[in-house]
């Protein structure tokens, strides 16, 4: 008799056997499960159980494409699709039918979203067809509806694998579901009145759709988007139903499925979301679905607004869908009077009528519903609610309050006398003034938010418009910061010639443009005013200007035509100076060094020659047999020469000795151009790939010749230039376009073609040249065809710098000196000092052996404190950074703060709590034990005079202590639980702290009460995984602005006196550990624990300087730029 294994053992055997079975079947073996079970009779039951579970988890095989997709409209399949043109970004959402991804259209330079059908597993062919049909329905429905409340469809196309997609405007904002949640939490920004307006807009968009024969069928708060400026969109028309012209339900345009059914006519199909689904939808009676169905859904949303939870749901509970459906089929939801007894009767009546179970008793359509909602908002007669004459009179009085108030005032004036009138007028004037100021600030804030949105969307001109609309008196740091960003300011000028070459003088003040017929113009860079003009006589019957070069003084211009004789001209008057005769073939490039009397030329006769300009004779030459020189450059120091050759070789010589010092290569390609960057730090060379219409540009470190970057561009390269400060390379190609590439991201960030640039042309041209204006940070000039264009918009974020420390060390903390341009950054056990204006490295301080986790300056800027993980506290002289004192505080110090005078240091340790050191105290003078601290707040504060200490001592309290003896002086009470950090204003009149209800509380120390509660605005609870931690808080110098960094990397700025949010945007990844405000320039510094530094700038001069400085730091390898 065999021993029967226990149950688990049998399951283990079944597990192994089934794995083998499934693998073999997957491999193609024709196995039957029943037979397999029979062969394993002793574990058959276990096999059956596991197999059933496996079947429910299994996925069908991979499907590569939609090839042979049934029912895809032929017109769509044939349509030109631009899918390959889009830059695909992050996936935003994914559902049963498709995906939504963010895309960028580089041609029109706008961000959009793309909906694309999911290309994964299908269970059945007819399901695939149905999925596509629904997708196309949404695209067509939305595409046919032209209303501000319906997101427009831009393009409907087909992916290369056959999947249809369409692109739409990207809407940024919140869903109505989010706003309902905020309303329930008591957010004053989203009152019931305001949300009723949103519902009105939903009605208007839906009513328009009804007028066009479309019924949404899935209206719900999650399908309504409210943009940042209150614009309302009805989304997701994928379940919509369209009527044909005869008013009959539309039959599917997709070929019939295998069962012969079509989507629209299938009985029993459930469409909608239970809580907002009408009774006729729940019953599956699609033939009864009409505009009244959408009315019901809007009524259900109104119900949720009034009651606080959707119909058939109790507040705070989410029953499973089947339970909701069952309740819906049984009868109406709980009466609103029970859950919201104080709701005005008119509003209840509106909701009740919208949600009648019989569709014929509801509002006829959404327009009708909108009309009654508007009537309610304007205190007019609501048709859904019958009233009497007295009620109507009261409403009339309320509506005409001003009129009745004036009448009352007139009566009182007569009764009381003129003195009373004068007093009333003064009060009125004051009230009006206050209203004007409020309105002006409101306008400022609205325009600021509009400008932010336009900048995010890449609409610089419109952003500049909104910024211009901001009242000047209200403009603060945030305005100056945003105003730096819109930089697209093209300047164009038409030329009478077809331009073929372009060059700047050394200072960038003058620009020479050469043309196809030998014409040369010298222009003033700033306004394109013509300074001089001349025509180069043809040589060898060729007069096409190939290259231009100013001498170092800017007085002489050397011109190379496609002939063999370069000529020299006076810049000021265009007078002829002379010609350099000697080359036997066309001169391809020329360049001056530091000596204005020496010109270098390269020619197709295989020689590179040096010439005396004054004597117009050859000084020396190099001859080459194996390949022809194609390009030539002299470094800014005048010490080296670089040349490119037709065989891909790049040689560098030392000019004095003519010794070759370096050889680089473009294997198998011809070098189109070589250049040094204006500071001589980089070598640049461009070549053309012979087999493809593409160019390659490489950048090498000038000193080490280490290859740094390789960039690719389209078209045959005619010329290229580099602007290291701006991090840009421009490549002019034979297509007449100039590509502008970012060095850091190696991406093309612009492609300026003839059309996009607005340059006029008579016919397509292959002439194109471009150069960056010296010392003008990314100011590109290009000429193509008959036009000259100057564009400076590529470094659009010169007000926003984002870097991360390179290498393995991670920056942990940073702090700015309060008055000097110094930034202290703690990276592991080292403190690095940077010049905060230029970003240049100043010094490295090494006195810690463990990771430094906190750095602080005293407010007078005389001392710096640093503490590491072991609790070593080092006090530094903040002027020369010599060590003043070291102390051991013990491990796990979280924060430290020092006073100016009286030598008081306050610190917080995890285990000890808060300790206060005075003078040379080896141990804390007094402490606050951890049990007395709430545990969610850290960073105690000390006043400048060292007399008072502030610390969070309870869940909702901050206590002010006497610093000497720890005696409590006062307690500040917060409205809700505190979490995060504390901050003290520079004038020591305010203390701020983060709260767990998505706000910051600010106390007035003068009055001892709450001065302001500042909300995070757009970031609701759904954005936070847990309680929102305010990780950094700073006041500006005048206490008119408060800045906060949040635990999710978001940066906020408020106008403190008015308590209004001005800026709120993601800034860094994760926990913002450091936030500093430059009190003079209004610059904001942000750092996190991942080694990232971000600087938000408002001063253009400082911004440019900082950009250059950080560029050097990047080249030195100390920082990397984050895009």
């Amino acid at each position: 008799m065999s021993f029967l294994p226990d149950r688990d053992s049998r399951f283990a055997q079944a597990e192994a056997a089934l794995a083998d079975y499934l693998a073999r079947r997957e491999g193609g073996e024709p196995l039957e499960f029943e037979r397999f079970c029979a062969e394993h009779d002793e574990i058959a039951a276990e096999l059956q159980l596991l197999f059933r579970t496996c079947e429910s988890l299994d996925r069908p095989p991979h499907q590569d494409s939609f090839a042979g997709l049934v029912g895809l409209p032929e017109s769509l399949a044939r349509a030109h699709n631009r899918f390959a043109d889009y830059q695909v970004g992050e996936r935003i959402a994914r559902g049963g039918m498709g995906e939504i991804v963010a895309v960028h259209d580089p041609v029109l330079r706008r961000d959009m979203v793309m909906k694309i059908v999911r290309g994964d597993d299908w269970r059945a062919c007819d399901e695939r067809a149905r999925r596509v049909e629904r997708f196309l329905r949404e695209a067509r429905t939305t595409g046919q509806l032209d209303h501000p409340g319906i997101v427009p469809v831009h393009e409907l196309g087909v992916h290369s694998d056959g999947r249809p997609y369409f692109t739409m405007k990207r809407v940024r904002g919140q869903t109505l579901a989010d706003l309902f949640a905020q309303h329930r939490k008591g957010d004053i920004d989203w009152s019931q009145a305001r949300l009723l307006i949103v519902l009105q807009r939903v009605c208007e968009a839906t009513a328009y759709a009804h007028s066009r024969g479309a019924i949404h069928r899935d209206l719900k708060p999650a399908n309504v988007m409210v943009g940042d400026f209150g614009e309302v969109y009805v989304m997701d028309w994928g379940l919509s139903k369209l009527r044909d012209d005869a008013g009959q339900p539309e039959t599917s345009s997709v070929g019939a499925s295998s069962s012969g059914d079509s989507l629209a006519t299938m009985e029993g199909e459930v469409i909608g979301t239970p809580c907002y689904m009408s009774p006729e939808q729940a019953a599956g009676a699609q033939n009864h679905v009409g505009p009244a169905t959408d009315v019901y859904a809007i009524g259900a949303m109104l119900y949720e607004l009034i009651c606080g939870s959707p119909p058939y749901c109790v507040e705070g509970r989410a029953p499973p869908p089947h339970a909701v459906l069952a309740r819906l089929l049984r009868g109406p939801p709980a009466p609103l009077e029970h859950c919201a007894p104080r709701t005005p009767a008119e509003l209840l009546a509106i909701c009740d009528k919208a949600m009648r179970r019989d569709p014929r008793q509801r509002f006829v359509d959404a327009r009708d519903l909108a009309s009654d909602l508007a009537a309610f908002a304007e205190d007019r007669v609501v048709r859904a609610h019958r009233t009497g004459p007295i009620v109507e009179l009261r409403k009339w009085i309320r509506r005409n309050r001003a009129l009745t108030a004036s009448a009352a005032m007139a009566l009182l004036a007569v009764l009381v006398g003129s003195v009373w009138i004068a007093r009333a007028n003064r009060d009125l004037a004051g009230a009006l003034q206050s209203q004007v100021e409020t309105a002006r600030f409101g306008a400022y804030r609205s325009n600021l938010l509009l400008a932010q949105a336009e900048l995010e969307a890449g609409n610089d001109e419109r952003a500049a418009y909104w910024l211009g609309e901001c009242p000047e008196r209200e403009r603060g740091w945030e305005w100056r910061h945003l105003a730096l960003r819109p930089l697209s300011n093209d300047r164009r000028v038409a030329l009478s010639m077809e331009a073929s070459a372009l060059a700047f003088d050394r200072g960038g003040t003058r620009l020479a443009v050469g043309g196809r017929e030998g014409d040369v113009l010298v222009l003033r860079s700033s306004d394109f005013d013509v300074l001089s003009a001349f025509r180069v006589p043809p040589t060898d019957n060729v007069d096409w200007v190939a290259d231009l070069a100013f001498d170092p003084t800017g007085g002489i211009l050397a011109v190379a035509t496609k002939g063999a004789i370069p000529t020299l001209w006076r810049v000021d008057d265009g007078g002829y100076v002379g010609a350099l005769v000697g080359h036997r073939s066309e001169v391809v490039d020329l360049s001056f060094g530091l000596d204005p009397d020496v010109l270098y030329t390269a020619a197709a006769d295989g020689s590179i020659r040096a010439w005396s300009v004054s004597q117009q004779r050859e000084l020396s030459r190099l001859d080459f047999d194996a390949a022809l020189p194609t390009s030539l450059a002299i470094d800014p120091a005048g010490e080296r020469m670089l040349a490119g050759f037709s065989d891909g070789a790049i040689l560098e010589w030392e000019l004095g000795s003519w010794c070759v010092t370096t050889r680089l290569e473009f294997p198998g390609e011809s070098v189109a151009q070589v250049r040094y960057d204006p500071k001589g730090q980089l070598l640049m060379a461009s070549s053309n790939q012979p087999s493809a219409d593409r160019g390659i540009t490489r950048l090498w470190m000038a000193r080490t010749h280490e290859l740094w970057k390789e960039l690719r561009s389209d078209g045959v390269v005619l010329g290229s230039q580099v602007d290291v400060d701006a991090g840009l390379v421009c490549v002019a190609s034979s297509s007449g376009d100039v590509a502008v590439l970012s060095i850091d991201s190696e991406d093309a960030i612009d492609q300026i073609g003839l059309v996009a640039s607005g340059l006029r042309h008579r016919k397509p041209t292959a002439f194109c040249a471009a150069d960056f204006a010296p010392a003008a940070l990314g100011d590109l000039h290009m000429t193509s065809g008959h036009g000259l264009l100057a564009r400076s918009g590529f470094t659009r974020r010169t007000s926003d710098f984002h870097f991360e420390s390179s290498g393995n060390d991670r920056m942990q903390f940073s702090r700015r000196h309060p008055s000097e341009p110094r930034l202290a950054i703690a990276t592991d056990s080292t403190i690095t000092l940077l010049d905060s204006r230029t970003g240049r490295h100043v010094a490295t301080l090494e006195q810690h052996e463990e990771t430094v986790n906190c750095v602080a300056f005293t407010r007078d800027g005389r001392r710096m404190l640093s503490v590491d993980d072991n609790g070593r506290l080092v006090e530094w002289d903040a002027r020369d950074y010599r060590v003043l004192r070291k102390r051991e505080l013990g491990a796990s110090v979280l924060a430290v703060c020092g006073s100016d005078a009286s030598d008081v240091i306050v610190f917080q340790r995890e285990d000890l709590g808060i300790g206060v050191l005075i003078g040379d105290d080896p141990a804390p003078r007094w402490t606050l034990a951890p049990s007395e601290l709430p545990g969610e707040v850290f960073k105690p504060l000390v006043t400048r005079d060292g007399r008072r200490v502030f610390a969070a001592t309870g869940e909702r309290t901050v206590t002010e202590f006497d610093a000497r003896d720890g005696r409590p002086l006062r307690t500040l009470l917060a409205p809700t639980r505190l979490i995060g950090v504390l901050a003290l204003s520079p004038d020591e009149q305010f203390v701020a702290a983060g709260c767990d209800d998505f706000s910051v509380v600010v106390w007035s120390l003068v009055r001892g009460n709450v001065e302001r509660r500042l909300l995070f605005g757009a970031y609701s609870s759904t954005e936070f995984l847990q309680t929102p931690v305010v990780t950094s808080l700073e006041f500006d110098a005048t206490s008119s602005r408060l800045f906060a960094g949040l635990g999710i990397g978001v940066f906020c700025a408020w106008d403190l006196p008015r308590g209004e949010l001005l800026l709120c945007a993601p800034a860094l990844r994760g926990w913002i550990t450091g936030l500093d405000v430059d009190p003079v320039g209004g610059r904001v510094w942000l750092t996190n624990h991942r080694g990232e530094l971000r600087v938000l700038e408002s001063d253009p001069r400082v911004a440019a300087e900082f950009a250059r400085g950080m560029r050097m730091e990047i080249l030195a390898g100390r920082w990397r730029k984050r895009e």
Partner: protein
Amino acid sequence: MTTPQTHDETIDLLQRWHGGDRAALGELLERHLPKLREFVRTRLDLDARHVRRDQDSLDLTQHAAVRVLEYMPRFVPRDGQQFQALLRRIVTNALINEVRAPKHRLREQRNGGYGDSMLDLRSSPHSSMQPERAIAAREQADETRAWARMALEFLDDECDRQLVLLAAVDERPWNEIGEATEMTPDAARMRFKRVMPKLANRIRMLREGRIDELLEQFG
């Protein structure tokens, strides 16, 4: 200071959460997160300094705990202690996943957001059913995925956990799964076939409430 939780309270909160009481989630987190964080700080084999100051790990802990509760199938552990042990197992896996190279890091995606409407083409074979059956079918599919999501935490092999998450829970296409796991789609699918019985057995044990055994055997 929080009062020590009793098993009744944890079970009661779980049952309320399963019943749709959203407030119960917050209470559950409030009761169990401090211990979980302490566990992460002191017991896991990570650099304590980084963990203590690395708010990402603590954020991740809370994030993982929230996701567990969101996807957890409708079962009730024996008591709060078992519940805490389960959370630790899951959070440990999540943290291990987090320290892997970025390209291997799993990113659980949130399905939906595109509309949790009742028209679900995945259930198209039942499309001629009455509404209640369509809803029931969908709920059953969701429940199966929830069990799979929990059972995968008891697979020892990280690659297997990835596979199950991507294939059975997130239902990603095989080419994406192959890319994420550095296998060809066919190889990924083959491996998934082999893992499924193991997963099914884990699901069986979970449904039978044998969490202690699973924790002991695979924890």
